[in-house]
């Protein structure tokens, strides 16, 4: 039997769909880590990106910093955080937040930059305050790119949240790490397939959301 068909039978085994080690629980944990990470990263990166995009300040710095953050190996960062904070939820969350910030920041400031300057000037000319310009003109027009940033961050975090299992947390990474430890390749492949499907489903949701929230419907 090939590894692929073994993985399929691993997936269809009812025992693997219940309990703490079962797929529903692991998927819930995985989505939980992803949601937590993207929420924190969004709270940091989107306001910052909007400020950079609106004012045009520090853009060069933002480009350089996000480039540098992208180059950080997440697993290395995780180990560093563990040495600092010990094991627990904090180290992988920090490592994943660092991973999620660059696309979010880029989406936010690039989104605002993509707004036609004439439109912004027109908004100011009819007497809108800066907050009104941002809230009523720039953000709605930039929404597809901001959402694109979130979409990209979610995808990267879903794919990388497997590292939480490296230091004993749950999530879908458990199947990869535990499978590797005892050379149970069907289990690893089954886990990978679930991660791929989860990523595709989430990406599909964002594709729909992006279309719905686009101003030019």
């Amino acid at each position, binding site marked *: 039997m090939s590894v692929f068909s073994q993985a399929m039978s691993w997936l269809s085994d009812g025992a693997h769909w219940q309990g703490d080690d079962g797929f529903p629980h692991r998927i819930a944990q995985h989505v939980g880590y992803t949601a937590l990470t993207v929420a924190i990263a969004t709270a940091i990166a989107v306001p910052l990106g909007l400020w950079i995009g609106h004012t045009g300040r520090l853009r060069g710095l933002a480009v350089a910093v996000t480039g540098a953050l992208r180059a950080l190996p997440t697993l290395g960062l995780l*180990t560093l955080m563990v040495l600092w904070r*010990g*094991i627990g939820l904090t180290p992988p969350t920090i490592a994943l937040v660092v991973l999620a910030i660059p696309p979010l920041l880029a989406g936010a400031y690039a989104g605002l930059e993509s707004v036609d300057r004439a439109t912004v000037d027109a908004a100011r000319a009819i007497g809108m305050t800066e907050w009104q310009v941002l809230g009523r003109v720039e953000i709605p027009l930039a929404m597809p790119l901001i959402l694109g940033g979130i979409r990209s961050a979610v995808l990267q975090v879903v794919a990388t949240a497997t590292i939480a*299992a*490296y*230091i*004993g947390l749950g999530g879908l990474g458990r199947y990869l790490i535990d499978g590797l*430890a005892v050379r149970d390749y069907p289990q690893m492949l089954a886990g990978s397939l679930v991660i791929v499907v989860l990523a595709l489903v989430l990406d599909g949701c964002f594709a729909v959301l992006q279309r719905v929230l686009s101003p030019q419907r």
Partner: protein
Amino acid sequence: MKVARLAATVAAAGLALTLAACGGNPTNTASGSDTSGASASSSGSGGSGSTAPIVVGSASFPESEVLAEIYAQALQAKGIDASTHLDIGQREAYIGALKDGSISLFPEYTGNLLTYFQPNATQTAPDDVLTALKAALPDTLTVLTPAAAEDKDSYNVTADFAAKHHLTSIADLKGISGLSLAGNPELKTRSYGVPGLQKVYGISGIKFTAISDSGGPATLKALTSGKVDVADIYSTTPSITQNHLVTLTDPQHLIAAQNVIPLIRKDHDNATVDQTLDAVSAKLTTQSLLDLNAKLNGPSKPKASDVAAQWLKDNGLA
């Protein structure tokens, strides 16, 4: 496209040939001298002072390299022509090199060597492992006297935790409720891991945290920060002494013995070699391995040969 592919194939084949030649050359010269050595030693079998040159191999980790250096330099001190061929990699590769005669001696570990030749072996006590190992070895190879030194999985606790619960052995963990353990993920299912702790020592309700760094910094941090009570760390890891951890003894032999043992080609074995290596093994303890590893990992990153020379000198063997 076709031409390019053909060229690539030719290039790959050429590379393979070159590599084979590279791998083959030392093998040929070595086995050439081996045959002469073999005939010499078989004619004077058992006699001391046979001059068959001995090539000591090692795997690709510092401890194995320093052990190979210790063997080689101890033999040299007795006037035997010995050299080293370090960094051979995995067991598949160096057992092959021993069989074809390109190396003749290797510092091995009893338990892992037994599992290599007999994958379903269940022996764990040192003597049982040794007996089974001797039976499982191929005809051309033999093992000498094992050292007390062992490099294997070991259960460690902090000095504070040990004092608080009066711990010296794994059996003492039994009374502690809600015990938490960290180690590689396979510990959850392997016989020497959580199932064995339950079955052999009757420790139930263990909360297991899988940390995939083989007892490295993250596992250590989990233990020293008090996130877990017990951690599986290899018994010769310098962090054990550096952090004053207490390694729990294993009276029931839950973890298979991994004594350091010289694995040698029979045609290179003689009384002088035996005496020399037995004297080394007699001095080699797990504490020696810890000290050697600590030195090798030290800030000055000394060469394995220098560390080996110093150890032999300190123990009056060279």
